[in-house]
């Protein structure tokens, strides 16, 4: 064996060892989706004693009078809307903060950071009141509209950091060619920003997909319910064993779309980069 091959094997072994530890809890979750509810409650062993495939059939039955595909669809619509909104408006804002000069830039940037430093519980009610006045409560708008208003400071800041890493010579060259800021943004910055845009898309999708709190507050009719809301309806206030088996089965199923989304897009994080051809 050549040293290079040895090193490669050692690398694989190391990575796999860490992966195994990382994935143990997920394996437990997967195994639980195949256990009877009572066994989940009384034992913490990984391997099911009884294999309960019926959990999946029961997870796919309608809940609160709504077919399960509807929860998937609602969640997907909200998540997709959020992705589109964040990718467009956060990159616009990031470009302005990173490359344009205007008087209120610094105070505005500081205010943006302040919006994520204040716990959202105390702005929840005023914000709810606003959406209530707008007649948007119990629609998807309160969950999607803010994303079209670049309210996710996390992503604005993320993209600011990436834009600042891009060589300014490029902007200047484009400017000499007569490009205005909008063209510089779309033709120069956006293509180079692809890893950050993909990152934004992935995180927005996953975080919206899993968000419970906002969805709980703004969605009240069962037809509008999403997966995180549906997943809480297995837990009863009653003393009896909750429907944990089907709940785990639906949890596993609801993870699949996000896993696929991540797996499909993660490769663009690397493949998309052409910066190696550019001089810093």
């Amino acid at each position, binding site marked *: 064996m050549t040293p290079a091959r040895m090193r490669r094997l050692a690398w694989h072994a190391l990575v796999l060892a860490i992966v195994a530890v990382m994935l143990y809890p997920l394996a437990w979750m997967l195994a639980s989706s195949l256990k009877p509810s009572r066994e989940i*409650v*009384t034992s913490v062993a990984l391997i099911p004693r009884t294999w309960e495939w019926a959990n999946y059939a029961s997870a796919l039955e309608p*809940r609160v009078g709504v077919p399960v595909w509807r929860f998937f669809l609602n969640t997907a619509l909200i998540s997709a809307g959020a992705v589109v909104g964040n990718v467009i408006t956060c990159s616009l804002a990031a470009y302005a903060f990173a490359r344009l000069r205007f008087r209120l830039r610094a105070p505005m940037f500081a205010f943006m950071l302040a919006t994520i430093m204040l716990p959202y519980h105390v702005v929840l009610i005023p914000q*709810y009141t606003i959406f209530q006045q*707008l007649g948007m409560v119990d629609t998807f708008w309160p969950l999607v509209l803010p994303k079209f208003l670049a309210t996710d400071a996390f992503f604005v800041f993320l993209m600011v950091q990436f834009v600042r890493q891009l060589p300014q010579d490029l902007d200047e060259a484009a400017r000499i060619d007569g490009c205005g800021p909008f063209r510089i943004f779309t033709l120069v910055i956006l293509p180079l920003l692809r890893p950050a845009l993909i990152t934004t898309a992935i995180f927005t999708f996953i975080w919206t997909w899993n968000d419970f709190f906002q969805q*709980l507050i703004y969605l009240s009719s*069962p037809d509008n319910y999403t997966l995180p809301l549906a997943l809480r*309806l*297995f837990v009863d*206030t009653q003393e009896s064993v909750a429907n944990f088996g089907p709940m785990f089965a639906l949890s596993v199923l609801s993870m699949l779309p996000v896993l696929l989304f991540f797996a499909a897009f993660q490769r663009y994080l690397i493949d998309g980069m052409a910066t190696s051809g550019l001089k810093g």
Partner: protein
Amino acid sequence: MKKTPVAVTALALTLLATACGGSGSEDGETTLRFAIWGSDERYEIVQGAVQAFMDDNPGIQVETTVAEYDAYWQRMNTEMAGGNAPDVFLMSDRHLREYTGRNVVMDLAPHVGEGVRTDDITPEVMGLGTDGDHLWGLPMSQITITMPYNPGLWEEAGAEAPELGWTWDDYLEAAQTVSEHTDEDVYGASDFGGIESWFKVYLSQKGKSLYTEDGELGYTADDVVEWWEMATEFREAGATTPGEITNDTTAGSPMVQRHSASEFTPDSTFAPDQADEFDGDFALAPLPQADSLGLYAEPAMLISASARTSHEEESLALIDYVVNEPAAAEALGMTFGLPANQTNREHISGDLEGAWQQVYEYEELVGPELKEGPPAPPQGASALFDLFTAYYEDVMFDRADPEEQARAFYAEAEQVIADNQD
């Protein structure tokens, strides 16, 4: 709720409101929003009663919304504060004064006899919603505290079966016996010390209550000391579950997790097929007693209306229907406990099965002994409920002396009550 005080926002808001507002009109129909807490299963059951209501009241649509208990209150608080409360909703005893004290619940008293019937409701459960001349909601049901246990395990261990009139000493002895004769991690009883609801029964057995009519504490620090010292005696004798089992409720109570052969619970918390979970080894018994049995009848919750509903008449009709109509009672069965309406109670008694039949029998057994429920807890009661558990936690993990901890709790409880009275 104060509107956001900034003119700019108001302007932008108005512009957007005209652009995107308006949720569409309804064609002559009234739509009521009805909020309940619980699981998908409970939703289906309630929906049966709601459907019957809609069939009988063609002009009214009811949109039922459901969330689990904690989420329910988070959403309710937000909606109430935002001026968008559901028309009709379930109300727990601990939240009642928080809401009525802030004028967001409709007073049903003026409508009694006209739209809202109370004649047939058991008087014992009317107390919670009654507040002077006001009536803040109708009782959904009658419940009392019971002790589910595994008679098979008890018998095998040679413990004496619980019966009406047995005492806390009897319980200690029996639970200890069960602990000794079962697997190492199975105990005769679940530690009861940290749950305020059971302390409430204990106080009632001594002729006291958690709160007085004027919303003061109805007990002394010594009462807490006594209760926590008794619970500690049980735990140290190995009769009740140790801290790490008592505390681990993510997947259910110790008894549900097979770590305990008895515990206390309201008798409305069982599914009809409850006994199957214990392979049939399941029975209900009265709680052990101190000076007296001290059990009382209380509603599992109230059904109330928003003070700001724009559909007052329809909301009252729904409340009345759910509590008083036989069709609703048939759909609900014993989900919330024994029907509060006596006619309905007899009406459904014929076709009960499984655990619901056991609950019915239990209510018949203790029924003659039941006292009227204690008054509604004052503002601050929710916080105290949690504090009671939090303070006991250090006792149950043997990190603190029960007496010191009890006195510390009591001092804070007095403070909380005082703060809420300003």
